[in-house]
C-alpha cells in the first residue's frame, strides 16, 4: 500500500445559495483546480463524488459523470458516486484513498456536493425521513431532529446533562464559524439566544441543530512520493476507522453512549499508530449540540456522562485539552451532506499550512482527526491526517 497525500482543494461558500446543484459543482471544481499548481482536470484518473440524496434534492442520478462533464474530468480508472448519508463525503475520500494507495490511480479527486434548499422545504424534510428504516422508523416521522432529541433526553436523564451545557457547544462553534469565510453562519450566538430560539423537537431548539445547507467542495489525493509536484506542504492520511452497527432504531448499539464511535476511534488510533494525546485538531460531526457532547466521551477526552462538564470547563476550545471544530463545525459552518467531510478535510489542510485566521488557528498542529456520523449515530467514519 502506498502512502497517500492530499495536495489541495477548494470549496464553495455554504448556506442558502442562489445557485443550482451543477453551479455549486462548477464553483467548487474551479476553486479546487485553481488552487493546485501543475494539475489539470485531464490528469484525474479517479473521481469519487460524495452525494447523499441528489435523486431527491435535485432529481438527478448518475451524478459522478455529471461532475466529471462539468469540470472536464475524464477518468480512466475509477468513477462512482458514494452514498453514506451524512458521511457521503468521507466515503468519497476513503474510496479515493484506496484507489491511490492500491496503485490503481495516481491522481484521485474526492468531491462532495449537496443542494438542499428546495422551493418547498417540506420536500426536503421528506428526504431526511428515509434515512433510518423508512417503513418502520421513517413512517413515524423519525428523522434526525426527533432522534437526536431523544438522544439528548436520555443523556440528560441518565447523566444530568443540561440544556445550557448543550447550548455552549453551539456558542463555541458559531464563534469559530465567524472566522470561516465559507461558513453558513457568520454571527455569534449566546446561551440565552440558543435557549430562546424556536423549539424544533424538545429538548432541542433551533440553534441546537445544524442547518439545511447548499455547498460543494473537492480535494485531490496523490501518492505521497508525487506530492511535491503539486505543493510544498501536503498532508497525509495515516489511519482510519469505520464502524457500522445496525440501522433501524431497534438495532442500535446504544442511545446515550456511542459504542460504535468508541470502537472506530480505537481502530483509527491503532492504524495511525498514535494515541489520543497526539491529536491536535478534531473536526467532529456536531450535527446537533448533543452529538458533540457524546463525541467528547466516546473519543475518551472525558469520562462517560461528563461531556457537558467538558464544554462547561472550556476544554474543547483552541488552547484547551483538544481543539474541537475550530472550523465552526456543522452547527456554525452548515451541513451540505455530501460536501461536509470534504470541507472538514480542506480546513485541516489549511490549519496545517497556517492559512486560517488567528482566532481559530491551532498553532503547531501536526495531527488531526476528521469524523462523520451517519444514520442514527450507528455508523461512524474517521480519518487521521498528519502534517508529516
Amino acid at each position, binding site marked *: 500500500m502506498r502512502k497517500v497525500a492530499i495536495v489541495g482543494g477548494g470549496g464553495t461558500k455554504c448556506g442558502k445559495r442562489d445557485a443550482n446543484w451543477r453551479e455549486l459543482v462548477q464553483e467548487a471544481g474551479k476553486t479546487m483546480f485553481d488552487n493546485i499548481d501543475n494539475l489539470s482536470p485531464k490528469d484525474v484518473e479517479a473521481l469519487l463524488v460524495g452525494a447523499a440524496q441528489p435523486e431527491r434534492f435535485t432529481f438527478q442520478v448518475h451524478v459522478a459523470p455529471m461532475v466529471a462533464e462539468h469540470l472536464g474530468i475524464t477518468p480512466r480508472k475509477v468513477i462512482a458516486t458514494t452514498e453514506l448519508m451524512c458521511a457521503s463525503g468521507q466515503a468519497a475520500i476513503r474510496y479515493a484513498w484506496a484507489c491511490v494507495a492500491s496503485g490503481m490511480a495516481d491522481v484521485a479527486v474526492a468531491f462532495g456536493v449537496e443542494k438542499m434548499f428546495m422551493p418547498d422545504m417540506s420536500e426536503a*424534510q421528506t428526504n431526511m*425521513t428515509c434515512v433510518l428504516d423508512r417503513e418502520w422508523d421513517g413512517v413515524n416521522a423519525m428523522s434526525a431532529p426527533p432522534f437526536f432529541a431523544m438522544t439528548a433526553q436520555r443523556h440528560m436523564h441518565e447523566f444530568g446533562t443540561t440544556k445550557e451545557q448543550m447550548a455552549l457547544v453551539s456558542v463555541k462553534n458559531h464563534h469559530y464559524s465567524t472566522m470561516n469565510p465559507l461558513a453558513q453562519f457568520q454571527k455569534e450566538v449566546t446561551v440565552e439566544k440558543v435557549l430562546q430560539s424556536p423549539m424544533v423537537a424538545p429538548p432541542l431548539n433551533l440553534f441546537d441543530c445544524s442547518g439545511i445547507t447548499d455547498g460543494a467542495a473537492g480535494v485531490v489525493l496523490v501518492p505521497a512520493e508525487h506530492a511535491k509536484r503539486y505543493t510544498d506542504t501536503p498532508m497525509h492520511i495515516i489511519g482510519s476507522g469505520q464502524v457500522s452497527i445496525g440501522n433501524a432504531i431497534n438495532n442500535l448499539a446504544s442511545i446515550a453512549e456511542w459504542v460504535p464511535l468508541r470502537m472506530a476511534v480505537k481502530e483509527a488510533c491503532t492504524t495511525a499508530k498514535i494515541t489520543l494525546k497526539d491529536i491536535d485538531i478534531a473536526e467532529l460531526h456536531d450535527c446537533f449540540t448533543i452529538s458533540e457532547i457524546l463525541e467528547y466521551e466516546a473519543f475518551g477526552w472525558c469520562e462517560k456522562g461528563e461531556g457537558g462538564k467538558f464544554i462547561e470547563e472550556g476544554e474543547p476550545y483552541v488552547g484547551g485539552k483538544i481543539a474541537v471544530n475550530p472550523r465552526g463545525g456543522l452547527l456554525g459552518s452548515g451541513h451540505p451532506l455530501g460536501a461536509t467531510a470534504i470541507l472538514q478535510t480542506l480546513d485541516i489542510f489549511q490549519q496545517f499550512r497556517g492559512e486560517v485566521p488567528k482566532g481559530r488557528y491551532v498553532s503547531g498542529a501536526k495531527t488531526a482527526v476528521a469524523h462523520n456520523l451517519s444514520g442514527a449515530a450507528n455508523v461512524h467514519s474517521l480519518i487521521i491526517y498528519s502534517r508529516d
Partner: protein
Amino acid sequence: MGNKQFEKIRRPENIKLPYMLDFYPLEDEKNTRISKFFENLKEDRFTSTKCKACGKLLWPPRIVCSSCLSDNLEWVDLGVEGELYAFSEMRGGAPLGFAQDLPFCIGLVKIGGLLISARIDNARYEDLKIGEKVKLKIVELEDGRIFYRFQRID
C-alpha cells in the same frame, strides 16, 4: 418580457401522492412476505419474527435471521403494552403528508424485549414521562392499509 405571449402549458397543481412517498409499507402478500404482521395487527396482535434456530427476536419482522441466517422463523406476540423509553414532539418540519398532524409526539417504546420507534398519540410532550406505560393503537389508511401507534394510558 414586455407584451410577448407564449403558449401556456400545464403543470398540474395536484397529483396523487405516490406510494413510495407516503412512508407506509406495502402490506399485502403480493408485495411482501411479512404480510402476516399486518394480518395479526388487524386482530389486535402486535407480533414479530423469532428465529427457531438461534432464538433471536428480530425487528422489524424478517424472512431470514440476521443473527444466524436461518430462514426457520416463527411469529411471536410482543404484547400490547409497552414502556416509554424516550420521546420528543414534532413541532414543525414535518415530512410531506404529516403536516396536518402537527404537533405530534414520537417515542421509543420498550415492548416484548424490543426497542421500537412509534408515534405516541393522546399526549403532548409536557404530559409524558420516561418509563410511562403506553398501549398499542391501530390506525387505518383510507386505502385499507393499517399501521401501529402507541398511546398514553389515561
